[in-house]
């Protein structure tokens, strides 16, 4: 069958399946299970209405359970087992965790993750706020905003490829196509540097990529928040004699504090899960390992499912509290 027809067929079956599910399950509830007639009509209507929400929730709950809840359970189980050479698993208790904690590469990943955690959300939110404020009143502000937002449309891997070109190194006698080396040579550097192999600092070269992407996100949200500040409070501050910096830091920023927190924590969660950028640019070499890439290494390269799952659990444990806090903040702001 032609793939296009196949695709079309899938869509038709999928959509009509959804519609059919909602239609027939409700029909079944109203006509067969609790019909609104006979001596118990009133009671039946009440019961049907109690069940109906669950009919609508069921598909979502089932999908979430299958693709989110079950994998968490399975990962936890795998992290407590080990492979028997030749096939099969056996209970290993905390052995995987003990092994992982003993590995220097794991602690390197933890350290780097913490670095990412501090630097990227701070810089992204800071730049986002700065751009949002600076572009607020100028005529070409929206053009500038669109340009800054554009990296959001690029995948992490795509962005990594772009930035690999920025950091590219050619032998000394050739022209440098990497803009960083070109600038470096122009300002008197002698030898072109292989930027991504300089330990410790290369972490920051990787972080730049994520900051570049996330600044647009922070800017859009914070710009909307800044616009939501009542104009009169700013005019009142002008009359009170505040200068532009005082207005920004003492009137505007405090009023959008919750939004800043939500943006910060949202970026934090993205950072904790960062994988693609490191995978595509250094693959964790030269001391740039992060937890997600460490997990991928163990799980799919070393085929050590136990330690891989254990590191996945570590990531989840780190993300969960921030996630809960983030959801709470977002809800508080909505109210």
């Amino acid at each position, binding site marked *: 069958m032609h793939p296009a027809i196949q695709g079309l067929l899938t869509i038709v079956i999928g959509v009509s399946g959804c519609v059919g599910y909602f239609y027939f399950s409700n029909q079944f509830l109203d006509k067969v299970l609790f019909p609104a007639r006979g001596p118990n009509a009133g009671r039946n209507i009440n019961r049907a209405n109690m069940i109906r929400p669950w009919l609508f929730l069921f598909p979502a709950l089932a999908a979430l359970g299958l693709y989110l809840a079950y994998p968490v359970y399975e990962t936890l189980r795998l992290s407590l087992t080990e492979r028997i050479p030749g096939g099969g698993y056996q209970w290993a208790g905390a052995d995987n965790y003990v092994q992982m904690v003993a590995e220097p590469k794991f602690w390197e990943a933890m350290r780097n993750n913490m670095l990412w955690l501090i630097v990227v959300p701070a810089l992204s939110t800071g730049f986002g706020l700065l751009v949002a404020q600076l572009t607020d009143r100028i005529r070409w502000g929206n053009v500038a905003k669109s340009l800054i937002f554009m990296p959001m449309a690029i995948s992490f891997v795509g962005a990594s490829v772009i930035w690999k070109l920025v950091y590219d190194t050619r032998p000394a006698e050739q022209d440098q196509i990497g803009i960083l080396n070109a600038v470096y040579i122009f300002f008197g550097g002698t030898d072109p540097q292989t930027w991504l192999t300089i330990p410790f600092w290369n972490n920051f070269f990787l972080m730049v990529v994520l900051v570049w992407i996330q600044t647009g996100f922070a800017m859009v949200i914070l710009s909307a928040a800044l616009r939501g500040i*009542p104009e009169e409070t700013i*005019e*009142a501050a002008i009359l*009170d*004699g*505040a200068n532009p910096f005082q207005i920004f830091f003492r*009137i505007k920023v405090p*009023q959008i*504090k919750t939004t800043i927190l939500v943006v910060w924590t949202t970026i934090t969660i993205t950072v904790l899960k960062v994988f693609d950028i490191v995978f595509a640019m250094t693959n964790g070499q030269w001391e740039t390992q992060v937890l997600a890439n460490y997990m991928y290494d163990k799980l799919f390269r070393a085929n050590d499912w136990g330690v891989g799952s254990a590191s996945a659990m570590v990531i989840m444990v780190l993300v969960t509290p921030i996630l809960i806090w983030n959801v709470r903040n977002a809800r508080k702001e909505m109210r």
Partner: protein
Amino acid sequence: MTDLKLTSVAKTYGSVDVLKDINLDISGGELIVFVGPSGCGKSTLLRMIAGLESISGGTLEIDDTVMNDVPPAQRGIAMVFQSYALYPHMTVRDNMAFALKIAKQPKDEVDKAVERAARILQLEPFLDRLPKALSGGQRQRVAIGRAIVRDPKVYLFDEPLSNLDAALRVATRIEIARLKEAMPDSTMIYVTHDQVEAMTLASRIVVLANKGIAQVGTPLELYETPDNEFVAQFIGSPAMNLLPGTITETGETTTVALDAGGTAVSAIPTGPEDKGKSVNVGVRPEDLYTANGTYLLQGKVDFTEALGEVTLLYFENEADNDAMIAKLPGVQKNLRGETVAMSADPEKVHLFHNGLSLRK
């Protein structure tokens, strides 16, 4: 005591004139009220005085110093906004202290000023609350307090009562009047669209219309001797009736033959050259009374509104003009559908030619 002087002040947005040729002398200690229909530019004029809008032409002087290009904070003004404009993240105390802290005043002086303002406005129990924990009236008092602590030369109020409910509006209005009495030296400019606020608070009212000033005067001057039809109809409620007619007799008093058939006698003197002029006769609904013999206005009562203290009569009118209205004291029954003749004292009859009063 601070004088404020506007000399041919104008405001344009691009090619659109919003205000032009505004000339106004405000002397120290006055409470000036700007009134006018919506969109007449009264808030714009206030914001130009505050420095929140640029002045497109003319000069603004405060105490003989030209203020056109002086930053708002250095003009010695404080403004109370319609929406209160309190800083939502600061307590009442911090809201009031903000301007002084920005000005780097010593802490004990700041505290003293805040406490003084809080005492005047009875805000002492709320000093450590956030604005969201206050009622509308309390918020407005904080906004006023924020102005008081700065001890400004000129207070600017931009429709400060329009976000309050009716009862609170009356109470806060009285509070503002008291505040003014307690600070007789401070100059206040107050913008409102509410006639009652204007009439009760103002030492002088400035009526703005058609991009300029229609008339300036004390509340009763505007009510008793309006310069033009606009002011005549804008001040007073219901609005003054206008009846077209032609002057037939001139002299110490003027007699007008009305197009609708009645005769009006006005105490406004006219010269022989005025004879035959077509004029509008203006008479307030409350100045009309039922007449026998010669009448000014006669018509069938189309509709009545009994308010208890007064009864409003709406007369049937053939043309497309606004209905003539009479306001009779007390309760008047069974007038609907009747033909009634009304008259008014000559002192209460106004004459307008081409929109302007014939009173010299």
